[in-house]
C-alpha cells in the first residue's frame, strides 16, 4: 500500500476543507455572530494539517483499488473530525462526541441530530451543518477532484466514494465528469432555493432546506422540520426535489445531451418511480381514515414516502400515529434507498434489482443445472465480479446490522427504537420510530451508542467496503 500517497491525497482534501470552513465564517460575519472565530480557528487548524501532509510530493504516485478505499474512508473520518471542531470550539454543543455525531450525520447526509435546541443555534453553525449535507451528498472527494488532480488513478477514489454497484464516468476525463456532476447539482439546488423563496420562505431557511434536500440529508433549522411550514406549495416543492435528487445524476446528463434512449432504457429509474408510486397509493389508502380530506392524505403520504426512500428524512406528519401497515412500508423503504449515482443512501434500487435478478437466475439454475445465463441491467451484461460484490455487500450489510442491533440493545431503549435507529443511521435517513418519533433526536442515546451509530452512518454512506478495508489490519501490514 502506498501510504505516502494516501496521506498526501488526504492532505489535499483537508486543505479544501479549510476553504469550506470559510463559507460559514462568512455567514457568521453577515449575521454578526461570535461563531465566526470558531470557524476561523478550525480553518487554520485544517490548513495546517493539510499543509503538513502535503509538504512533500511522493515520488511513487501509483495507487491501487485498496489505496482508493483507504483514502476514501480516512478522508471521511478526517473531515468529520475536523468539521466537528466549530461546534466544539463555539461551545454550542458541549460534548465532542455529540459534535462528531452531528458532523458525521451531516456529511453522510443522514440528518439525525444529537441536539434538542437547534432553533437556539447561531446561524453560522446551522449553515455549516447543512452545508456538510450538500458537500457530502455528491461527495467530498468528487468535489476535490473537480478542482485539483489528486492522482492519475482517481477512478479508484471515485468508485470508492460514489454510491451504487457500478460506477462509470460521463466523459473520458474524471475531472470533467466531476465538474458536470457538480454543475447539475448546483443548478438543481439553485432552482430549489428560488422556488422556496417564491413560496415565502426566508432566504436563509430556503438555502438550509435546499442543502438538506439536495444532499438528501434532512437537517432543518426548525425543530418541527418541514411541518413548521404550513404551506402546501412548500411541501410539494420539497417532495418533488427530494425525488429528483434521488435519481441517478447520469440521467440528467443524458437529458442535457439529448440522449433520450439511455433515459428510457434505464431500468433503475423505472423501478424507483414505480416503487414510489405504489408506496404512495398504499399509504394514502391506509391513512385515509385519519384524514378529513383526500388531497392532504395523498400529500402527506407522498412527502413521507419520498423523504424516506430518498433517505432525506424531512417530516411533515407524525407517522408514529399512522397505522402499523404504513409505518412498516416506511421502514421497508428505509432499506430500499434511492438510485445509484444519486445523493441518496440506503441499499439502492439497482443493487436490489440486480440481487433479485441473481436470485432468480439461481432459482432457474436449480431447475436446469447446466443452464448458462447472463444478468443484465439496462440491456447490458453485468460482470460476474460486480455480481459477486453485490452478494458480499449483502452479507456484510446483514452482519453489521446485526452487530449494531445487539450492541444498541445494551442501551436502555426498546427493540423498535433500536431497530429503527440502526436502520435510520445505516441507511443515512435520520428520523427513527419508537422513543423519539419522527421529530425526536438521538440526544438520549449513550455516548457509546452515538459513536456506534456514527460508524454506521459512515458504513452506509461509503457502502461498507472502504471502511471495512481500512478496519482490516491485514491492509496495514507492510508485507
Amino acid at each position: 500500500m502506498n501510504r505516502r500517497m494516501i496521506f498526501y491525497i488526504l492532505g489535499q482534501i483537508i486543505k479544501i476543507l479549510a476553504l469550506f470552513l470559510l463559507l460559514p465564517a462568512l455567514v457568521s460575519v453577515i449575521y454578526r455572530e461570535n461563531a465566526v472565530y470558531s470557524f476561523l480557528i478550525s480553518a487554520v487548524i485544517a490548513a495546517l494539517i493539510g499543509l503538513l501532509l502535503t509538504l512533500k510530493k511522493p515520488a511513487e504516485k501509483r495507487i491501487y483499488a485498496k489505496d482508493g478505499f483507504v483514502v476514501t474512508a480516512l478522508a471521511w473520518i478526517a473531515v468529520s473530525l475536523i468539521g466537528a471542531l466549530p461546534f466544539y470550539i463555539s461551545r454550542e454543543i458541549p460534548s465532542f462526541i455529540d459534535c462528531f455525531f452531528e458532523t458525521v450525520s451531516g456529511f453522510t447526509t443522514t440528518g439525525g441530530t444529537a441536539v434538542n435546541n437547534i432553533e437556539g443555534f447561531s446561524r453560522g453553525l446551522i449553515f455549516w451543518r447543512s452545508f456538510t449535507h450538500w458537500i457530502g451528498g455528491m461527495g467530498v472527494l468528487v468535489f476535490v477532484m473537480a478542482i485539483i488532480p489528486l492522482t492519475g488513478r482517481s477512478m479508484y477514489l471515485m468508485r470508492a466514494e460514489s454510491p451504487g454497484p457500478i460506477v462509470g464516468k460521463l466523459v473520458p476525463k474524471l475531472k470533467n465528469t466531476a465538474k458536470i456532476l457538480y454543475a447539475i447539482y448546483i443548478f438543481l439546488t439553485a432552482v430549489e432555493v428560488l422556488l422556496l423563496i417564491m413560496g415565502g420562505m426566508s432566504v436563509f431557511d430556503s438555502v438550509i432546506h435546499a442543502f438538506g434536500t439536495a444532499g438528501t440529508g434532512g437537517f432543518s433549522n426548525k425543530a418541527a422540520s418541514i411541518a413548521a411550514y404550513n404551506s402546501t406549495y412548500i411541501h410539494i416543492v420539497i417532495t418533488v426535489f427530494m425525488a429528483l435528487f434521488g435519481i441517478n445524476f447520469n440521467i440528467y446528463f443524458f437529458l442535457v445531451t439529448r440522449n433520450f434512449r439511455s433515459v428510457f432504457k434505464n431500468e433503475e429509474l423505472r423501478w424507483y418511480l414505480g416503487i414510489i408510486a405504489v408506496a404512495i397509493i398504499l399509504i394514502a389508502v391506509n391513512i385515509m381514515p385519519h384524514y378529513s380530506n383526500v388531497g392532504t392524505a395523498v400529500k402527506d403520504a407522498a412527502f413521507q414516502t419520498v423523504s424516506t426512500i430518498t433517505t432525506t428524512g424531512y417530516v411533515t406528519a407524525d407517522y408514529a400515529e399512522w397505522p402499523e401497515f404504513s409505518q412498516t412500508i416506511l421502514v421497508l423503504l428505509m432499506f430500499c434507498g434511492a438510485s445509484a449515482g444519486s445523493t441518496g443512501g440506503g441499499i439502492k434500487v439497482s443493487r436490489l434489482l440486480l440481487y433479485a435478478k441473481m436470485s432468480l437466475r439461481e432459482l432457474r439454475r436449480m431447475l436446469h443445472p447446466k443452464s448458462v445465463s447472463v444478468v443484465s441491467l439496462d440491456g447490458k451484461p453485468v460482470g460476474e465480479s460486480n455480481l459477486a460484490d453485490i452478494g458480499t455487500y449483502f452479507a456484510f450489510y446483514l452482519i453489521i446490522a446485526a452487530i449494531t442491533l445487539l450492541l444498541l440493545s445494551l442501551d436502555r431503549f426498546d427493540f423498535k427504537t433500536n431497530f429503527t435507529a440502526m436502520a435510520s443511521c445505516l441507511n443515512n435517513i435520520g428520523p427513527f420510530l419508537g422513543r423519539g418519533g419522527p421529530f425526536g433526536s438521538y440526544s438520549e442515546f449513550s455516548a457509546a451508542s452515538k459513536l456506534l451509530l456514527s460508524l454506521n452512518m459512515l458504513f452506509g454512506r461509503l457502502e461498507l467496503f472502504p471502511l471495512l478495508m481500512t478496519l482490516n489490519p491485514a491492509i496495514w501490514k507492510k508485507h
Partner: protein
Amino acid sequence: MRIVIVGCGKVGSALVEQLSAEGHDIVVIDSDKETVDGMANMYDVIGIYGNGASHPVQEEAEVSKADLLIATTSFDELNMLCCLSAKKMGAGNTIARIRNPEYFAQLDFLREELGLSMHINPEYATAGEIFRTLRFTSAQKIETFANGMIEIAEIRVTEDSVMSGLRLKDFGKVFDVKALVCAVQRVDSIFIPDGNFVLESGDKISLVAAPDQAEKIFEKIGHVRKKLRNVFIIGGSRIGFYLAQMLLSTGAGVKIIDNDDKRARYISEELPKATVILGDGTDQELLHEEGIGNADALVALTGVDEENVIISMYANYMKVEKVVAKVNRSGMLSLLDNIGLDNIVSPKLITANMIIQYVRAMKNTLGSNVETLYKIARGKAEALEFIARQASDVIGVPLKKLKTRKNLLIAGIIRGNQAIIPNGEDRILMGDRVVVVTTNTRLDDLSDILA
C-alpha cells in the same frame, strides 16, 4: 482532442498510457471486459466493452464526434472495418494497423477507399527501426529533424573513450566539431547538462549535430560506419523477414536462424540471397558453427523476450559489434540497460511513438505548434521541433538572456538550409525551426520554453 482507441493489446495500451498523459479525451473499446475495466482503472479514460466495428458500440463511443479513431486490434479486417464505418459516421481521421503483407501490397488502394489517414504495420516499422540502428554501428539510435538537417544520436560512453571524464565545455574543442550534448542518462536518472557537466564512463549521451558533424564524431570515437557483411537474424518472424529484405537490398550478407521447418522453407523461397538455417538460435554450438565470432551484427527476434536477452548477452560476450534484441515488456527496459544491452527494440513502443507523432502533428493544426516530437533517453526526455511563427518574448533575444524552464535546452536552430548548434550568443529569429530538448512534457508552443 477526442480520440477513440479500438483494441487494447500491447500497442493500444501503450497508446492509451501516452495519450491520456498528454491530456486527450480518450474512449477505449475492447471486446474483453476485464481489459476494458483495467484500462479505465489505470488511466483517465472511458472504457466501452464490445466489438469496435459494430455500429451501436461506435455510437456509444460517439465516434461521430471523435477527431481521431485508432484501430489496433489484432485483426486487419476488423481494423479496416472500424475505420471505414467510423469515417462514414463522421470521425475526423482514422489510423489502422494493417500487418498482413498481402493487404500491405494494396495499401494505396485501401487507403483511398477506406479514407485512412494513416496505416501502420508494427513489424515493418520495427524492422525499419532496427535497420537504421544497424547502419550506424556506434550510435544506438538516431532521430532526425527538419528533413535530416539535424540529428540526435544516442551514444554510450565507454571506459576507454576520450569522452570519459570530459567536461562538456571542452567537447567542441576536443572533437573539433559543432555539436551539443543535450541529455545524459546515468543509471536511472536523466540530466539536461550545462557546460560544467562532466561525463563518466557508462553514461549514455544524446548528441545534437548536423549529419556531417555527427559523422566526424563517430570517426573520432573510432567507430566508422562500415558496410555490414555478416548479419545474424535469430527468428524468422515477420520482423526478421522485413529486416532481411531491407539488409539484402543494401548488399549485406544475412543469415536467418529459425527452428520452424515450414517458415525456414518459406523464407528461403522468398529470399533466395539469404542463408537460412534450420535450428535453435539459443544453441551456442549452432551459433559457433555458423561463425558468430565473425558476425558484424546480431539481431535477436524470437517470440520470447527472455530468449532474445540471453542470445544477446551471449553475442555481447562473443564480441559481436552490434547486438539488437527485441523485448516487448517495457518494464524490463531499464533492467537491461544495467547489463549492457543497449539496443533494445520494442515493437509496441515504436508503433505507439509513430502514432503519437502523428497525433502531435494533428494537434498542431488544432492549436499546438509541435512539428516533430521524439522521445529520447528511454522516453524520459523529449526532443521537440517548433517553428517560430508568431512574435513572442523568445524571438530575437540572445539565448543566454532567455529565462528558460529548468531542465530544458535549446539544442538546435535551423535557419533556411543552415543548421546552427547554438551557443549563448545565438538568437531565435522569425521563421526558424527550433529543436528543444526537455524532461518536461507537454510543451505546446515555442513560448512555453520560458519559465
